[in-house]
């Protein structure tokens, strides 16, 4: 029983990272209608940037703050330089642009840093604490906490703040929103910036709990099922989907095999698509005949 609870806790911690990445994807999609396939590369880039800045600045916390500032700026720049010129073009072309951007960023990381995995010995404690029979790393507790805070903050942001409401309006009715005076381009830029910020948060946490390698880019591939399971239009759903994927993965790994974990996650994805296509917390879109 203790092992079972331990695996659930490990799953929640891993799933919280998936959830953070998934929120970034949902946020950009919710605001712009674009699925950003370069999101995983932003996670990896943030982690690598953190190792460089730590070496340059000598202080882990300072480097973390720098990454959380620099990467969102990169996100905004990506919007203005690459995504904005695609506005009005077919959606497929924009999606292909994000795929191309992801490949370019991955190549850039390899050129700048090489293929060797790196370590980040930052200020986030690496020790673990025992709560009853369950052992949990302080970094995992921090990850879960940050995921919960993000969930609450973005929930409030989209329902209470003017900017959040404008983002939802642009996502639902872009033309009507523009006619109402909403600056859609600014909204898109903010969405990409905040999405990149979430990728940076995930990158920092992963650098502290895992190893820094270009393979972190693949995280977005695991976050995609989380987004679909949770509901592609729901920030809360992204976290719920992420945690569900994380827990399923760990339980399948513990009681079947590592390979079974992937099968279980995609089986659940298929079941959700069949039974509740809008996802667990997503809302069904009304279509006018």
């Amino acid at each position, binding site marked *: 029983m203790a092992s079972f609870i331990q695996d659930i806790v490990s799953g929640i911690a891993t799933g919280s990272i998936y959830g953070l990445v998934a929120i970034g994807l949902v946020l950009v999609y919710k605001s712009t209608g674009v699925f950003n396939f370069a999101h995983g590369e932003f996670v990896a880039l943030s982690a690598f940037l953190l190792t460089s800045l730590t070496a340059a600045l000598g202080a882990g916390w300072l480097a973390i703050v720098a990454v959380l500032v620099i990467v969102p700026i990169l996100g905004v720049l990506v919007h203005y330089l690459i995504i904005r010129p695609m506005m009005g073009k077919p959606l497929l072309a924009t999606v292909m642009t994000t795929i191309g951007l992801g490949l370019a960023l991955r190549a850039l990381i*390899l050129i700048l840093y090489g293929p060797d995995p790196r370590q980040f010995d930052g200020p986030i404690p690496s020790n673990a604490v025992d709560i009853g029979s369950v052992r949990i790393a302080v970094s995992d507790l921090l990850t879960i906490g940050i995921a919960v805070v993000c969930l609450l903050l973005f929930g409030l942001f989209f329902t209470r703040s003017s900017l959040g409401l404008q983002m939802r309006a642009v996502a639902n009715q872009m033309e009507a929103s523009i006619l109402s005076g909403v600056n859609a381009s600014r909204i898109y830029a903010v969405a990409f910036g905040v999405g990149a910020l979430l990728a940076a948060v995930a990158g920092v946490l992963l650098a502290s709990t895992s190893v820094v390698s270009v393979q972190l880019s693949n995280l977005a591939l695991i976050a995609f099922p989380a987004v679909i399971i949770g509901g592609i239009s729901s920030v809360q759903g992204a976290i719920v989907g992420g945690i569900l994927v994380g827990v399923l993965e760990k339980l399948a790994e*513990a009681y079947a095999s*590592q390979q079974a974990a992937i099968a279980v996650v995609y089986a659940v994805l298929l079941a959700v698509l069949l039974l509740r296509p809008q996802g667990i917390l997503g809302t069904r879109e009304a279509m006018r005949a």
Partner: protein
Amino acid sequence: MKINSTFGRTAAVPALVGGLLLASACGSSSSSSSFSSPKDGVSATEITIGMSSDVTGPAASNYLPYTSGVKAYFDAVNGKGGINGRKVNVVVLDDQSQAPKGVSNYRRFVTQTPALAFTGLNSTQQSAVAAQSRANNLPFVGSIVTGADMMKPFNKNFYSLACTYPDQAEVAVAFMVEQLGLAAPRIMTSQTPVASGNEWASVVKELVQKAGGTLVANHVTEYGALNEDVFGRDVADKKPDMLIAHGATSTAQVTMKSLAKFGVKNLPIGTAAVLQDGSVPATAPGVVNSYYAFNCYTAPGAAGADGEPLIAAAKAAGLEAKVYDRPEFTQGYTIAMVMAKAIEGAGDRPTRDAVQQQLDKLNELDNGALSPAVTFSPDDHVGIAGVRPYKYNPSSGAFEPVGEFDDYAGCLTNYYVTRSLDSWNKDCIK
């Protein structure tokens, strides 16, 4: 007489033409510039060597030194004028450790961009091309690893230049059991989900049982996993006497982090050759009690190694020590050396068949004692026979060889030829 005279003049013309042709042919045999065989990857001025390696994928940190070793050797050869007047062009294609890409790359070098010889691929990719490699005549000269499917049944086109996984496991289990002095050791294994990983886990299990011990559990570590917490928890729960590990640097580092998270301390670890990388134990220093890798290649800069020629070639190629001072670099360099020796022996008209004939009689090729000497015969393509432990020294960050290759020769069953571990026993170390 007249007839004879006429005959003589008439015969003189073809005789003259024949003589000129003969002279021309003789000339061509003494000059490489007029022989070419595009289907073998040989032009008048250039020889193509095909290579498929993980350049940007999850095992790139292991494959980069190997790729660099191959290129550095041929760069040095080209700097001295090439082989019999031809420059060697090493064409490297990235396979990212993915089976479909590896197969596609291999096929390309068989026919589309023909190569005179080929090197590369991981064990799973090798399994995927095993049947094809038996059906064509492209000499496949080793890789960083040797997959069982390339060797069993005998493959006349494949030349192994890695210490085989059974060889590594045979020395690893005997050495680790001897080190701990336990009558009934409890051992855990880990592997990545590739063909060599499956072979590693299965051979270690059989050897552990022969040594009177128990295999407590085997864990598969996935490329790209964020953590190995289930494995970490399992090790903490089951408390094995040692871990015998297979994998890649990135998967091993993630595993070390999870072992640390679950409070695992002072665990003796013995690993396959590819984990001879100081960054693995350094990831979580408290976790490891002693860390040994079992390998047949020595890094050029290791204590007591005569790696100067390799280091000079690496520096000439502009490589950093973190790339060249690795056993994989020595391995790549040795593979290139073997290829070059065979191509040179094939003379001015190198073809795949001629290179194979030369490989089949390669005898005691020495790379400066950085590995056992390389020997092939027509019916034995295990070129490297010998494995020894390399101990990680935490203070220097380097691996130090433990004894000589001969000390462990009694542990080797030559499994790929004998197909049996029956002759192995745990007291095999000299």
